């Protein structure tokens, strides 16, 4: 062997070429979905009881990521389906996910305690289109019943595409919009250069780091059973309200069906095919404070919410959907920090009310 001096220029040049090739190869193949399916959850660590979401990863041992494959692979629903069981999946917003609740206190957990094989696939952020995106993945797990908890705030058109998970999975969202002819939703066309860049190794570095961190946090999830940061204190739902009657720019007195993304709900039911879907208008906090004659709570003016309930009921009847209007099923004292987040006791009450309905639907199958 001869000791030749190192040519740093050549080293740098080769490194640069290799870096470019690796980036282009990564962009061409985009292995992120495949990488997302590689998971230590349900193997080394127990599957998570709800989809990964975390604003304080260091304290929640959980994090928000955009890779839907990874999110589902980390969930307990990714386990092989046991024989002779019937799977019930819950789709919905942060109330279904169980904001401020421990995994064993959520609606899904309460229903599980009543003997149903229930999976919590709720995910924070209010958007029916986000729910549709998740429903697509939920259906791969062959559920026997889908319970879709919705609220008016998930249905305004301007809320549909703002959820980060929809934004970061824009290609899939576009496909759903096209497949189900959701004409009211307008997701801007893909910027090809930006999309290509985001698929390179460099552009996707954050996504890759998230995948890795999700696996690392599996250790603490397995060790502690904690998947959420619980603040020591929080403000209760606002009781004294502004006299404002507008709702997402809409003025009273009339809320039209076209103002809401009801066709997204229809798309969900259509996507589910033979699998029954139970649409639940989830409970809301009913304020007794100032201006409560004009508004039910921080989210909803009375005129808009009342008409939404009527519109939803009409749609359910016309389309033959199974629907439950649970809007006032939870007492005001059983809400935690918002007009939709329920307390452990609130979840228990809702589970008790839902159980016979679930039993009836599953019993008929």
């Amino acid at each position: 062997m001869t000791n030749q001096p190192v040519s740093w220029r050549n080293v740098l040049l080769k490194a640069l070429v290799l870096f470019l090739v690796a980036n282009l190869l990564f962009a061409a193949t985009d292995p992120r979905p495949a990488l997302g399916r590689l998971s230590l959850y349900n193997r080394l660590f127990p599957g998570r009881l709800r989809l990964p979401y975390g604003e304080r990863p260091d304290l929640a041992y959980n994090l928000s990521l955009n890779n839907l494959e990874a999110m589902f692979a980390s969930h307990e629903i990714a386990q092989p389906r046991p024989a002779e069981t019937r799977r019930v999946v819950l789709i919905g917003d942060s109330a279904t996910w169980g904001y401020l609740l421990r995994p064993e206190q959520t609606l899904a957990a309460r229903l599980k305690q009543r003997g149903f094989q229930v999976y919590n696939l709720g995910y924070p952020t209010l958007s029916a289109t986000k729910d549709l995106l998740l429903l697509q993945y939920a259906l791969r797990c062959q559920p026997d019943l889908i319970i879709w908890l919705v609220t008016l705030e998930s249905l305004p058109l301007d809320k549909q595409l703002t959820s980060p998970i929809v934004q970061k999975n824009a290609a899939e969202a576009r496909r759903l919009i096209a497949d189900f002819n959701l004409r009211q939703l307008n997701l801007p066309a893909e910027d090809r250069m930006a999309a290509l860049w985001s698929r390179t190794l460099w552009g996707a570095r954050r996504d890759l780091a998230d995948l890795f961190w999700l696996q690392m946090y599996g250790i603490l999830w397995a060790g502690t059973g904690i998947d959420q940061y619980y603040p020591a204190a929080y403000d209760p739902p606002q009781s004294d309200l502004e006299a404002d009657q507008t709702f997402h720019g809409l003025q009273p007195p009339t809320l039209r069906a076209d103002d809401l993304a009801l066709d997204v709900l229809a798309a969900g039911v259509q996507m589910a095919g033979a699998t029954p879907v139970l649409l639940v208008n989830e409970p809301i906090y009913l304020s007794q404070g100032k201006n409560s004659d004009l508004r039910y709570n921080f989210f909803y003016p009375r005129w808009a919410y009342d008409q939404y309930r009527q519109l939803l009921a009409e749609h359910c009847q016309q389309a033959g959907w199974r629907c439950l209007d649970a809007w006032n099923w939870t007492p005001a004292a059983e809400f935690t920090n918002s007009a939709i987040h329920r307390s452990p006791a609130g979840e228990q009450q809702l589970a008790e009310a839902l159980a016979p309905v679930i039993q009836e639907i599953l019993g008929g199958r």
Partner: protein
Amino acid sequence: MTLPQILVFATLALWVGRWTPARPWLLLAISVLAIYWTQPALPIRGLDFWLPTATLAVTIWVWGIARPERKEPPATGEADAAPRAPHLPARVLEFLRRGDQDGRAALLIAALILGLGATRYLGPLCCVTPSRPPEFWQIAVGVGGAALLAFALRRFAAGRRGALEGAVWALLAVFILLKTDPLAQAAALGLRALTGQSQAMASALDIRWLGFSYVAFRLIHTLRDRLAGRLPDLSLAAFVTYIIFFPAFTAGPIDRVQRFSKEFAGKPDWSGFERILWGVFKKFALADTLALVALNGVNASQVIHPGWLWVLVYAYALRIYFDFSGYTDIAIGLGRLMGFHLPENFERPYLKPNLTTFWNAWHITLAQWFRAYWFNPLTRALRTGRWQPPLSVVILLGQLSTMLLIGLWHGVTWNFALWGLWHGVGLFVHNRWSEATKARFASLNDHPAAQRFLAVVGALATFHYVALGWVWFALPSAALSWQTLLKLFGG
């Protein structure tokens, strides 16, 4: 050090490595600026400027006291200087060469401090300091006062035993103040009162004096060596550069001044790059990732299953190793780019077959420092003094006290003390065990397989002893540490 800082330091190191004649001056200037740049922002007004300034002042005062009597030109690293070059830096160097070297170094330091102070008037937040520097007149007064004291010390206290010993005690006193939370908090209260800030917000964290631990160790080393007559005659520039050498300022290693001072004209070694890359990988990829799941005061009480608690303890053990040895790699790599060969601080410590060899491989320069300035003098005194205890007692006292002091160096808390004692007891037990079994194990010299087996068992046992020791180190209270240890064993 952050990644951008490492990148800037590596670029500067490359540049400094090219300029052999100007290297001592460039190193001095960069190191002075670096201690301001790396100092974290502090809530007490102006303190993040005054602390680096105090580092420089204390260093210059100690140089004034410790400087040996001068018989010939001091070692500056300029001995191998190349002849005059037509480049601007070389011309500046030529200009600086005229007149008293130490005076020029002092002027350069003062100019840099005042220059940094003047950035206060450049914009909302400029350049190097973590927050806006204090008023310029305050800095000028501070620098003037420090210079006067330096002059007085050099003139009236240089080489005096009382001054040298007093300086050691003063450094230890500041060290204890910074490392003892109630004292640091009291100091924060005083400083807040001085600056007219809310005293209700006072916290020990208000006084985070970056690098002081290592600065104090190097200064005490020079003072003790001066007392022993072993300190070489160094110029002010060389001395200050040794104390605040920017690659090793924040996390060591603690080099010996005798060795360091010979390397000012060393040949740059490009292998430094590789070492920096390894260090960056260890620190930012491995250690920072392990930090997500490493044992800490919050998760220790949350873990339900002992099996996973062991994983957290292992993660902590590996994290602290990769973090610290990563920083050391970066420091050594930066040093090599400028022709300096800083001593190694870690030699695969977790693979060592016993605790004694572990401590010869973990934070080597710190352990050597304590061996040189505490363990050896203490055991010598015990063996030669009026009261001469048995050898085992000498070893017990030496090891317990040394490890206790190493523990307290991290902070004056029960947990660090217990961590030190844990290792002190471990070292003593190993010492006695190896003495007792020496003859028996000697018979295994002809059985390499058995020796290998014993080495593996020893390494596993040592690693676990050290890992369990980290439970004291990582957690905030002795009670939580004890509960965690019990939980690890199913309790």
